[in-house]
């Protein structure tokens, strides 16, 4: 120690130490080491969530993504809301108090009075009309997606009076409530966006929701604060933070060490890490979404419907979910979701099966000549997609079909001249058959645009009826026809509904909300509660 003391007394080292220490101390402003909840003793003071992905924008109209929906649901109000506590589909007034169809293509919407924006201004019909019309007008390229899947049938939202709007549609709109209750049709302040511009407003939006955005660091974190002038029940937490922790091991460590109160996107093979841990609760769910194989039906190898049907019949979905998903994912039995409700879900159309004999028969009737059926997969995008593809390729060997997995790094790297199949997902955006069909299998949709899906004229006709008909019996008939079409033509293969968990620390009461999109985190009143630590 004596020697060390002498060494350190050297003037050079002394100067280095002192100057570095001063600089470091000046630069390092240590924030609090404990959460607000721990400091105050109030468990509802703060909720810290570690997430796998964060949205790049907080403009809900601009991003239809799983990353976005986690946050948008909590920071945007919609005209109509879905009852997240009801096991059956139910709509409730949101920013609109009443709405009714006044003409074949016109709806009248009466707004809730005295609704405040986060900046203290009062919401009017001007704000609602602006928020939705800018999507219809595609004022930013990012609005094209929300326009296409939510507002394609809306011509204009017209201001009739300070608290009254008229919604004009191109065709009849049987899904009015479904569409206007999606957070991607959220409402923002017109004056604020006009003042700062669309891009700046996307970083710090001003809305009417129970939480307001305090901090947004894209790619890092979003911090929300309770909005005290909210028109409805106050938010359960004074502060909520979403922190991006892409690696699953790091997310698990963060909740284990108490750095986070909740973490998302836990794949089934990690569930055992939490076994015996009474401080953390795992909440697992099968998402209203299918992992699917989209055929490129314009490809000469996969242009034969009998081959496509044979490939579908040769997949043992139960074996895949048992081995890869530890039995927790749900094998597809129909091209439908039970979430539609009893009137639109048809049990007699549960016709997805594993039937090798039938597969071999159809294969023999097809024009298959031993070519390789290439499955294009974007690496690390869909959980276990690569492993599932390898299992499927093995299963196809049993009927004599040669498969090949091609890993690519992006969607655009898919070569549709070579690809027979690409991996995809079909989430249910709202609880109606059109909640999955319109987004993915519309005659004007992306699969059709890429010439992967080549709908017939009759399909186009039936789609129009199923989508827009005011007559529910007609819709049912058309939907049944479409299911038969999907069966016989097999433009895609539904594999399974994936399973994922989120983990919450002891003392937080949470359950996956009903009627909302997959990956939505319900942090509003009645959806989550902190009862202690």
């Amino acid at each position, binding site marked *: 120690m004596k*020697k*060390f003391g*002498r*060494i*350190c007394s*050297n003037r*050079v*080292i002394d100067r*280095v*130490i002192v100057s*570095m*220490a001063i*600089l*470091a101390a000046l*630069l*390092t402003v*240590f*924030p*609090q*080491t404990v959460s607000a909840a721990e400091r105050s003793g109030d468990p509802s003071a703060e909720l810290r969530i570690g997430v796998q992905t964060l949205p*790049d*924008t907080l403009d809900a109209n601009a991003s239809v993504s799983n990353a976005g929906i986690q946050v948008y649901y909590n920071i945007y109000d919609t005209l109509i809301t879905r009852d997240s506590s009801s096991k059956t589909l139910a709509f409730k007034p949101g920013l609109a108090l009443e709405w009714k169809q006044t003409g074949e293509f016109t709806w009248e919407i009466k707004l809730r009075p005295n609704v405040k924006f986060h900046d203290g201004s009062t919401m009017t019909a001007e704000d609602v009309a602006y928020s939705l019309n800018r999507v219809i007008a*595609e004022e*930013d*390229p*990012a609005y*094209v*997606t929300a326009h*296409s899947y939510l507002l394609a049938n809306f011509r204009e939202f017209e201001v009739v009076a300070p608290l009254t709007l008229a919604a004009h549609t191109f065709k009849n709109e049987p899904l009015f409530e479904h569409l206007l209750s999606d957070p991607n049709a959220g409402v923002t302040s017109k004056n604020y966006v006009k003042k700062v511009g669309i*891009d*700046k407003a*996307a*970083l710090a939006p001003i809305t009417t929701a129970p939480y307001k955005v305090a901090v947004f*660091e*894209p*790619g*890092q974190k979003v911090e929300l604060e309770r909005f005290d002038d909210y028109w409805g029940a106050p938010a359960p937490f004074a502060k909520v933070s979403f*922190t*991006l*922790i*892409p690696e699953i091991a*790091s997310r698990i*460590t*963060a909740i*284990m*060490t*108490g*750095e986070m109160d909740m973490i998302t996107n836990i794949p089934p093979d990690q569930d055992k890490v939490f076994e015996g841990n009474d401080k953390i609760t795992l909440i697992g769910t099968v998402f209203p979404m299918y992992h699917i194989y989209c055929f490129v039906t314009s490809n000469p190898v996969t242009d034969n419907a009998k081959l496509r049907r044979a490939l579908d019949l040769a997949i043992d979905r139960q074996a895949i979910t048992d081995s890869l998903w530890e039995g927790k994912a749900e094998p597809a039995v129909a091209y439908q979701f039970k979430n539609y409700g009893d009137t639109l879900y048809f049990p007699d159309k549960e016709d997805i099966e594993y039937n090798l004999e039938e597969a071999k028969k159809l294969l023999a009737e097809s024009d298959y000549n031993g070519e390789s059926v290439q499955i294009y997969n*974007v690496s690390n*995008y869909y959980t276990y997609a690569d492993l599932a593809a390898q299992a499927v390729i093995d299963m196809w060997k049993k009927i004599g079909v040669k498969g090949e997995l091609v890993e690519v790094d*992006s*969607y*655009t*790297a898919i070569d549709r001249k070579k690809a027979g199949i690409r991996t*995809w*997902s079909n989430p249910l955006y709202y609880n109606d058959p059109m909640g999955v069909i319109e987004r993915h299998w519309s005659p*004007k949709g*992306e699969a059709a*645009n*890429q010439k992967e899906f080549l709908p017939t004229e009759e399909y186009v006709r039936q789609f129009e009826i199923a989508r827009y008909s005011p007559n529910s019996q007609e819709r049912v008939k058309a939907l049944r026809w479409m299911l038969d079409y999907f069966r016989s033509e097999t433009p895609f293969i539904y594999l399974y509904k994936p399973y994922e968990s989120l983990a919450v620390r002891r003392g937080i009461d949470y359950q996956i909300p009903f009627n909302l999109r997959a990956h939505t985190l319900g942090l509003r009143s009645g959806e989550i509660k902190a009862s202690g630590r």
Partner: protein
Amino acid sequence: MGNRMIKYLLRRLAVGFITLLGIVVLVFFSSRLTGSPIEAMYPDGLEPGQLELFNAKYGFDKSYADQFVIYLKNLLHGDFGESIRERRDVRAILTARSLETLRLGVWAFALSVTCGISLGVCIALNRESFAVSIANNVMALLFSIPNFIIAIFLMLLFSFKLKILPSQGGGSALHYIMPVACFSLGPTISIAWYVKNGILETISQNYIRTAVAKGLGKARTIIGYAFRNALIPVITQVGMVIVDIVTGSLVIETVFSWPGVGYTLVNAVLDRDFPVVQGIILFLAGIVIALNFLLEILCMMVDPRINREAAA
């Protein structure tokens, strides 16, 4: 400093500027070979016509040459462009994130220099002891392990098993411990080796033997005479510590989710956020070039022999 020296330094400055320009060209065009940033933003695909609208908004519909001329013009006005992902000025992103890297880097630098020099002197003083020979081997082992392996090991031990240190982010004093340790481990060892070797080389000189013969004592001779003369290679190495921190930030910040320049650059590359990639690489390259230039001046000031060689 004579005229020839000034000319030499100006020449070095010009070379630095040309290097920077080369980097601008290389990064601009090579980043565009990776594909479209818009397609990276929409991994599930875009709606018909949406890509064209985005390309028009961000100017990607122009030829690469036109895009480069616009970029260069803006750059000369100090405008690094706007992030495609974050929708804000690259300068604002750089300022915020480089401060985060600086928070870590200053601690790592201070620790590396102080521990490295102290350790080097200690080893030189006790070079024949058994403990030092063990320490030398341990240092060689630690130096050869990549820092991301050490980072993951520390995380597993202190966060996952012992639960005493936070695993990610930059919220508190405790958050600094593991990333700073990872940043400074390699530089500490390399500085210690340079100091040790410098001292050992110097103590074989005649004037040291004379000092010892005068009865000054081993430690006093080493610290008072040998250490000063061993400083020149150490100065260069200390400068390299900053380069180590700059380059190491890409890995360490990503492992610990530390919101600094390295973490931002890795994400920007994955997202193909061209303006951010260009801005950060230019910024980092500027630091390394400026640092080399300063080190050269510093070495000239410390050792007149280098001054003469350069002028010649």
